[in-house]
């Protein structure tokens, strides 16, 4: 199992955003998370990637515990060194890319492997160029993010995340900040990664995409997982009224 989250609880002040969420991701799985705005999808990803700290629950990557909760109900994270090591297992692609504007495309991709992982520059450069080819951006290596379209920026962001060779890659609405005609090129890249058996968790509002690419779909509402299962089962003929209602609203 790549990721295991058990009984996750997260509140912002009095607002309980995640209420007892449990799920896991196996190697090679593509899990889509769908649900209405404000249901806690982003918060779940941010908790999984340690951008937010959980109030209670358990998170494990590759059977290595990152957080546990004792009998006292208080979540305890492992020490900084161990946590840093666990952080290497995952990558995250943001809705609004968060590329480094002062670095060229190539440097955006190369800098973390070189600076953080201390890998040899030439080896990293070759891999970065390979990733850019895969993203269809090999001619833009020397461009700066401000010279790229949204779709190109997001593909660079994906390449930047992949350059660190994560075991699992999270996407938080990777196409929501894009003009409609640019979503296709990003979804195509994610689809290609799915075919290569990259383990991914994708929060998305692109229902046809989720249906076509996922091995499993999770429907969240008001901080709980209402339903999860095979995409055909969820999208095709869900038995859960709440899911049905959400999908119906979506088609309108």
């Amino acid at each position, binding site marked *: 199992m790549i990721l295991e989250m058990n009984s996750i609880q997260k509140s912002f002040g009095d607002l309980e955003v995640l209420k007892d969420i449990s799920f896991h991701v196996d190697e090679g799985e593509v899990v889509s998370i769908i649900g209405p705005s404000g249901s806690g999808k982003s918060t779940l990803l941010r908790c999984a990637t340690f951008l937010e700290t959980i109030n209670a629950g358990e998170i494990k990557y590759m059977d290595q515990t990152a957080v546990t909760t004792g009998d006292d109900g208080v979540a305890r994270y492992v020490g900084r060194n161990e946590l840093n090591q666990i*952080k*290497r297992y*995952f990558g*995250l692609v943001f809705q609004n890319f968060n590329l480094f504007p002062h670095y060229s495309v190539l440097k955006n991709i190369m800098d973390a492997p070189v600076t*953080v*992982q201390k890998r040899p520059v030439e080896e990293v450069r070759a891999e970065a160029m390979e990733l850019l080819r895969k993203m269809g951006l090999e001619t833009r290596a020397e461009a700066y993010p401000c010279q790229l379209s949204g779709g190109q920026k997001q593909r660079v962001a994906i390449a930047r995340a992949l350059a660190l060779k994560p075991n699992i890659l999270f996407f938080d609405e990777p196409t929501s900040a894009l003009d409609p005609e640019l979503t296709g090129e990003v979804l195509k890249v994610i689809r290609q990664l799915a075919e290569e058996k990259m383990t991914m968790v994708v929060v998305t509002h692109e229902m046809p995409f989720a249906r076509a690419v996922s091995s499993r779909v999770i429907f969240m509402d008001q901080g709980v997982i209402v339903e999860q299962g095979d995409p055909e089962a969820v999208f095709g003929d869900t038995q859960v009224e709440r899911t049905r209602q959400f999908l119906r609203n979506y088609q309108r």
Partner: protein
Amino acid sequence: MSFSTMLASMGMGMLRSCLIFFLTLLFALPLGMGVMFLRRSGNPVIRNITKIYIAIMRGTPLMLQLLMWYFGPYYLFGMSIRGYRLPAIIIGFSVNYSAYFAEIYRGGIESIDHGQYEAAEILGYTKAQTFFKIILPQVIKVILPSVTNEVITLVKDTSLAFTLAYNEMFSLAKQIAASQTSFTPFIIAGVFYFIANYVVAFVMERIEKALDYYH
């Protein structure tokens, strides 16, 4: 006194003005960084003390602050202040300008999107790497125009050192003008400050151009 003699005797003053200018920048630019960190501290006591400090530095005349720095040690502790003229000037200027720079830095830092920190954290950068490699270069670009303004003000403010009878450009101009009953020294001084600021503006513009490759 001929024009060239006048110019020659004012030359030393120009050097002293330049000395104040460069030493102040040397100390105030990094010191301002420290003040900015204190100003942004999570500890409310530190944060508020720094706020008051900045308010005093910006809210009282620099001339008065220079007098305090120079005569303070004598009146407060009875210390001898012989030979302390230049250090007092540099301390006064640096401490004063660091408050202005701190506020400029703070504005710059707060203009950086929080997503930059999050991206860096996910990629595994340490806090120091994030600050020096990702945040600071972007901050420098943002604050450059405000820093230019402050540096130009500093060029002119060096003349305030006359308060402590330090013989920089402006003091000498005044002395020579009085003894020679001539207006020329003031014109020389004016041209000096103007050229100095022209150079400052030129250099800063070059730096801005060099950082123009992204936005």
